[in-house]
């Protein structure tokens, strides 16, 4: 029964279309957003070469095109499955978990092999770039055997028969190919990922991937299913604009998924929890006048004096989850270095925020961020000058 449900879940979005495995694989590779890491800036898609920054050093995502010498051309299906589900290359070397094989172990064989079939249709490109620039001892790949033993529990996806098929489809996508937890989960010791489905928020490249749980302020507690769908489909929903790493995810992946799959993801993320209202208890803020003065002069032109922004263009700050996240990394990064929102077919503008780091010193950034985290009913911890300094 469980197996049957799982099969139905995996096929839920595909049942109406008669597709070749390669066509299914193209869609599934989009779900997994493989192209994001496995493409060098300005390079051929999937030909590898992009350096992925990790806390341990850079690691170069390898070539996935069917080139025999430098790509996957000489790999068997079994090699491919072993790499994605167990983190082992054909020569027995261990992958680093920058490649989210921890998540892919939950993906069904048919789906992984469909991705392989799609990758096999690509034009072979010779690009031997790969490898990690990690420092000792993390440069010793054989030591990954211990990491895998500690943190890696290969587990196939198990459907919950008490939930709807759509909910289970969402769980399969989020916990598997979508590998949402790779960013939205708090990394543990040695970069270990959290339990599947624990999406309490995590730091990634100077940004904070927000809590996707039901917290009414910092999480999705105040978001409706439609809010989540619109955000993933367009990058913009009147509550938030996708920017930074999430803008890439929206542009490359979620904006290209079927509405049925986005609805499934939304159902799973909401965990059937009802909409909850944030408790209004704003506390007085030290130096609030300075933060308010900077906000009025430097921010209010776009984000408006009442923090409501301009729908689809300038993000709303009042009641925003990103603004009230546990960690202010995203806010600091956006203010210091600027940012650009996702540009999708449905929301093609991709509005940008200018960098203000040259104009605001650390104390000023801290003051204005502390202000927006406590104004208009927002409630979140103050931001320190020291945190801003680290973000420069």
């Amino acid at each position, binding site marked *: 029964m469980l197996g049957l449900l799982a099969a139905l879940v995996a096929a839920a979005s595909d049942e109406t279309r008669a597709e070749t495995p390669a066509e299914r694989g193209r869609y599934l590779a989009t779900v997994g957003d493989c192209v994001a890491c496995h493409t060098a800036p300005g390079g051929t898609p999937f030909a590898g070469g992009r350096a992925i920054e990790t806390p341990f050093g850079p690691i170069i995502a390898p070539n996935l095109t069917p080139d025999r010498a430098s790509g996957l051309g000489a790999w068997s299906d079994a090699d491919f499955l072993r790499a994605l589900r167990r983190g082992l290359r054909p020569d027995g070397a261990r992958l680093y978990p920058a490649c989210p094989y921890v998540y892919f172990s939950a993906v069904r064989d048919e789906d992984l092999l469909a991705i392989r079939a799609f990758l096999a249709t690509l034009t072979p490109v010779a690009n031997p770039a790969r490898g990690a620039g990690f420092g000792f001892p993390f440069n010793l790949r054989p030591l990954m055997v211990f990491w895998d033993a500690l943190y890696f529990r290969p587990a196939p996806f198990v459907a919950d028969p008490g939930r709807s098929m759509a909910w289970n489809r969402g769980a399969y996508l989020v916990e598997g190919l979508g590998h949402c937890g790779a960013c939205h989960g708090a990394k543990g010791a040695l970069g270990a990922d959290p339990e599947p489905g624990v999406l309490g928020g995590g730091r990634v490249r100077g940004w904070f991937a927000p809590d996707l749980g039901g917290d009414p302020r910092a999480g999705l507690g105040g978001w409706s299913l439609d809010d989540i769908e619109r955000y993933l489909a367009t990058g913009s929903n009147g509550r938030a604009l996708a920017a930074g790493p999430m803008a890439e995810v929206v542009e490359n992946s979620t904006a290209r998924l079927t509405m049925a799959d986005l609805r499934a993801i939304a159902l799973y993320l909401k965990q059937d929890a009802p909409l909850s209202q944030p408790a209004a208890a704003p506390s007085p803020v030290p*130096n609030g*006048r*300075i933060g308010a*003065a*900077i906000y*009025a*002069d*430097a921010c*209010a*032109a*776009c984000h408006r*004096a009442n923090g409501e922004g301009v729908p689809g263009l300038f993000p709303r700050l009042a009641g925003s989850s990103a603004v009230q996240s546990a960690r202010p990394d995203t806010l600091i990064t956006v203010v210091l270095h600027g940012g650009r929102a996702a540009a999708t077919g449905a929301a093609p503008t991709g509005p940008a925020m200018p960098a203000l780091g040259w*104009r*605001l010193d650390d*104390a*000023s950034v801290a003051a204005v961020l502390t202000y927006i985290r406590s104004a208009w009913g927002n409630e979140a911890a103050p931001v320190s000058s020291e945190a801003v300094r680290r973000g420069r």
Partner: protein
Amino acid sequence: MLTLAEAATLEAIVDRLIPPDELGPGGREAGCALFIDRQLAGPFGRSESLYLLPPFLDGTPEQGLQSPLTPAVRMRAGLAALEAHCRAAFVGRAFAALPPAGQDRLLSEIEDGTRSLAGVNARAWFDLVLQMTMEGFFADPIHGGNRQMAGWRLIGFPGARYDYRDWVERHGAAYTLPPVGIGGRPGWHDAG
């Protein structure tokens, strides 16, 4: 860029071109000399954007200055010539030590061409000083002048705000927000 002595002369000049009065501070307090010093030390002072190879001929007024000398060199030469003139004509006193009325008279004579200074085009030098003093009084404070936005407060200029949408519909209402510069305003650092 300027020496202390040159700066003292320049401070005295800018404070006569824009004297302090009941409307607000003068050129000295507004930082005009600092603005001029920074500009002379930068690309403008070195004529970096101008073609500076010969021939050098006296052109028509419409053709602008035809000189191999950069603004920094001209400023220095003019200040030195002014000092030499004062020390010769006023028994060794520096320009800065003259009474304001005496300073005004001398500057006025240079401006209208009735007073020449040895070795320099005194009128062209005066034009340079006057132009740069006005720039220093009204340019964004980030450049060293317009200190405390004295120039902007004087004329009611609101500064570098992004837009004024909240005020567009408020016909007849007094606009009360303080001016804000590229680098902010004093209220960003103390709750003013």
